[in-house]
Structure formats: structure tokens, C-alpha cells
């Protein structure tokens, strides 16, 4: 079936640098995408979302880019901080009950 996947399972960055986490999706009918952050022992926490009629959306220190031509999604975190260390998931929304389909996740580690 169609799914959402991530390019890299792990990412290490120096504190203060920018981080980029990538995601590829296959469902061309997906019209809504969400990035989640998950810390150890906790549930996924909403970071930012984007609809398919947009190319870019910015939040506080985070930016999501959507390239529908190549079905690619990215999350950019500016000035990465130690508190950003976590697993990041992209998810797409589909179905009559708007179910989330998750990618496998990227472990972000911020180095001092």
C-alpha cells in the first residue's frame, strides 16, 4: 500500500547549526502533512503542518517545505538546541476518518 517514508534514520548536528529532516511520500492524493516530535517515553507532539496547496510554512524556528512534484517533504530546524534531540516523524492524512500514516522516524541528536 501507499506509505510515508524517511530518507535517514539518524541525524547528528552541532548545537546552533540548522537541521534538515527529509521525508518522501507516495500517496499523490495526500492533501495534508504533519511533522511530529517524540521524546523518550512520551506521545508524539505536534510541530507544524502544511496543506498540499502550500509550498512552505514557517513556525517558531521551524519551517516545512513541500515539493509535490517529487513528493518530498522536509522539516528545517533553525539554531538547533539540545532540547530538540528527539525522534521526528512525518505523517500524511487520508481516509474518511482522516487517519494519520506515519513514516518510520528520524532520530535527531544535538551535539554540544
Amino acid at each position, binding site marked *: *500500500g501507499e506509505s*510515508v517514508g524517511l530518507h535517514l534514520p539518524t541525524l547528528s548536528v552541532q548545537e546552533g547549526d540548522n537541521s534538515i529532516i527529509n521525508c518522501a511520500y507516495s500517496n499523490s492524493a495526500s492533501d495534508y502533512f*504533519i511533522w511530529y516530535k517524540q521524546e523518550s*517515553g*512520551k*506521545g*508524539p*507532539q*505536534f510541530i507544524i*503542518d502544511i496543506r498540499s496547496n502550500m509550498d512552505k510554512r514557517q513556525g517558531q524556528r521551524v519551517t516545512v517545505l513541500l515539493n509535490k512534484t517529487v513528493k518530498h517533504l522536509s522539516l528545517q530546524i533553525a539554531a538547533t538546541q539540545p532540547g530538540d534531540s528527539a525522534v521526528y*516523524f512525518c*505523517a500524511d492524512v487520508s481516509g*474518511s*476518518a*482522516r*487517519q*494519520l*500514516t*506515519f*513514516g*518510520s*522516524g528520524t532520530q535527531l541528536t544535538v551535539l554540544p
Partner: protein
Amino acid sequence: DAGITQSPRHKVTETGTPVTLRCHQTENHRYMYWYRQDPGHGLRLIHYSYGVKDTDKGEVSDGYSVSRSKTEDFLLTLESATSSQTSVYFCAISSLSYGYTFGSGTRLTVV
């Protein structure tokens, strides 16, 4: 997380026994979901509900059943637990207008 609670938080059970996990919400959201999370995988959808007594299967529904007799409660039952069902289970709620909120998870170990 505010408005959604899962119980129990941790459970160890023996193979072959029935297990029920509970998700309770105070937000009056229409949609509720059960996911499981295993190492190396993102969250995978088990079952979901779009109203009282209205439920449907997700990607990994085999061995699981659900019930929703009232808006605030969504129960996930493992009829006869197996070791492959050892996992962390997350409940989520959604009203579509307000996005999705996840519970803190239930860590289930089947021995």
C-alpha cells in the same frame, strides 16, 4: 496530555490472556484512534472510530478488537495476547478542526 488519558500506563501479561487498554477523552472529539509503535517503525494504525459504535480496521488490526459505547471512551482488546503484540500503544483523538492529540502511551509486555 491534556484531555486524553490512557490506562494502564504499563502492563505485563501472559501469552493467551485477554487484555483491554482504555483511552478516555474529555474533549468530546468525534474521532479516536489506536496506534502501536515498535522499534524501527513509526506508529501504525490498529483501529479507529468515527463515532459511538462506529469503528473500522486500520493497517495492523489482526488480533485486536475495539469498542466505543460512549464518546469519551475507546477500548482496545487483545483477545488472546501474543508476544508479537508486545509494543507501546498510543491513543489519539481528533476533531479535525483542532488537529490530533496523542495520549502518553501504554507499554504492554506479553511474556
